[in-house]
């Protein structure tokens, strides 16, 4: 399971960087999306892929019973997903506006006229 996850993360990173290096703005958007997903999975894997108990403290104890799963990576990913979603939807809107005003989705045909 761990190695499958590692390979998935690696493929996501590779594909997204390939897409980000393209000139077409549409591909850049897809690159950004996949990059975010790769990063989220990577944080997920930081919580270790194991079957532990939920970190809930029983009423008569002060610490959760010994092998418990780390809940923090999920919280981090949740935050990262929300932030990433906000920024991504903004970038889609901005890139669409840029595409409309320039008439091309090629980043390199730069408008130099004022």
């Amino acid at each position, binding site marked *: 399971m761990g190695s499958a996850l590692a390979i998935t993360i690696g493929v996501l990173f590779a594909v997204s960087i390939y897409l*980000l290096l393209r000139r077409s*703005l549409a591909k*850049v958007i897809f690159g*950004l999306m996949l*990059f*975010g997903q790769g*990063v989220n999975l*990577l*944080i997920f*894997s*930081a*919580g*270790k892929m194991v079957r532990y108990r939920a970190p809930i403290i029983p009423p008569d104890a002060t610490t959760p019973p010994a092998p418990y799963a*780390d809940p*923090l*990576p999920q919280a*981090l990913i949740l*935050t*990262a997903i929300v*932030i990433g979603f*906000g*920024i991504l939807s*903004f*970038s889609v809107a*901005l*890139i669409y*506006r*840029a595409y409309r*005003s*320039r008439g091309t989705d090629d*980043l390199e045909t*730069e*408008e130099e*006229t004022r």
Partner: protein
Amino acid sequence: MTLRPDILIALPLALPFATAALLILLRRWVRLQSAVSVLGAALLFADGIALTAAVERAGILTMQSGRWIAPFGITLVADRLAAIMVLVTGFVALMTTLYAVADIPERQTRAGMQPVIHLLVAGVCGAFLTGDLFNLFVWFEVMLMASFVLLALGARAGHLGGAVKYLVLNFLSSGLFLTALGLLYGKVGTLNMADMAVKLRGGDETRLALAAGSLLLISFAIKAGVFPLFSWLPASYHTAPIAVSALFAGLLTKVGVYALLRAYTLFFALDHGWFGPILLIASVLTMAVGVLGAAAQYEIRRILSWHIISQIGYMTLGIALFTQHALAATVFYVIHHIVVKTNLFFLSGAIEQSAGSDRLSRIGGLYRAYTLLAWLFFIPAFSLGGIPPLSGFFAKFALLRAGFEVGAYFALAVGLLVGALTLFSMTKIWAEVFWKEAPEEAPPPRRVAPLRLLPIACMALTTLAISLYPQPLLRYSEAAGAQLHDSSVYIRAVLGKEAAP
């Protein structure tokens, strides 16, 4: 009136958010909105002064949010560096909101420029004050989102290409930051920066930590605009309204420099591993490439944008040298540069308003027509060039002296040469804008609105004050450098007495 220290630390986050919320409610009343905006920024400035004074008096202040003790909760930490950065941010915010009243057209004000400026400031202050790595990421995103909106609202139609580059590269930088953060959390199981410092220092230099450190270096270098990762900066800064690009020029890249300072003094040691040499080489190249890029430009704001990059090189050079004096020089340099560079962008707007263009070939003769403007320009421009007795001279002098102590002669030689070229760029603007005869087709110079001249004059006076009486700021940054160099003080302040190594 004295406030409790934890309130002093929380206010730089609460004030801009509250102001922004209020401003959105006041959207329909433009004048009232401007007044509230300036007032909010003034309160932030006042809090910055109080915070700096409190840190000077009592040492590092911390606030455990929600009473979750470190390293479990999010800790806000104000050491000397963070406090003075909040102070300068408040000052720049005050000046920018004043300038924005005259600069930003009513249509864009109604679209929400003023509240978004405050959201940006909230993000910047949060990044300075947080003691938690994931929280730093969140503040970066707050700042970035606000800057995206400001760029997109302000950009003229057909100039969105720069905004797109800015967005994509900064998104990538955040992604790399998050990747590094995930790797680090998997390795040490903590996000509190002080706790991370303790745990990374105890262990050996593992490959995973080295990889995370490299990713963080790239991510922060993109934000700071270090060679070769600066291309988003000259592409985007000149497209926004003057007030917005001045705010960006003053604060955004400096947040990157701050993050570098924090990370590589606290939990990654620069003196072993490859970070130090890489940062040194990158700094030298940043100085050189930035100033050469500026020499090829003939529009004032483009010249100034390239000079931001070149000056960032000096600041990161101080980090790369990694002695107490070098870190102190970097702190002094950052403060001096924020004031000077924001003012130069304001001035470029005033020149554009007066002469009707910001292309050097279309301007001229402003010295005769507008002597006051010429002198106001003289102070920050030649301070940037490092002419004694202006503040840039002391910044460069402190850095050079620190460099001599460790024998980094090549970097110093480049630094001196770049200083001379910076002076060339500034004299180029001076000669073209103020001394040259006005070109025939140029319209007669117009008066600049007093509301634009007020912040310019305030900032020029601040530069003069730092120049003529540099001792307090030099002493303060020397103490800040000492605090950065000996991270055990920071760690003890956050985690308690027994945690120090």
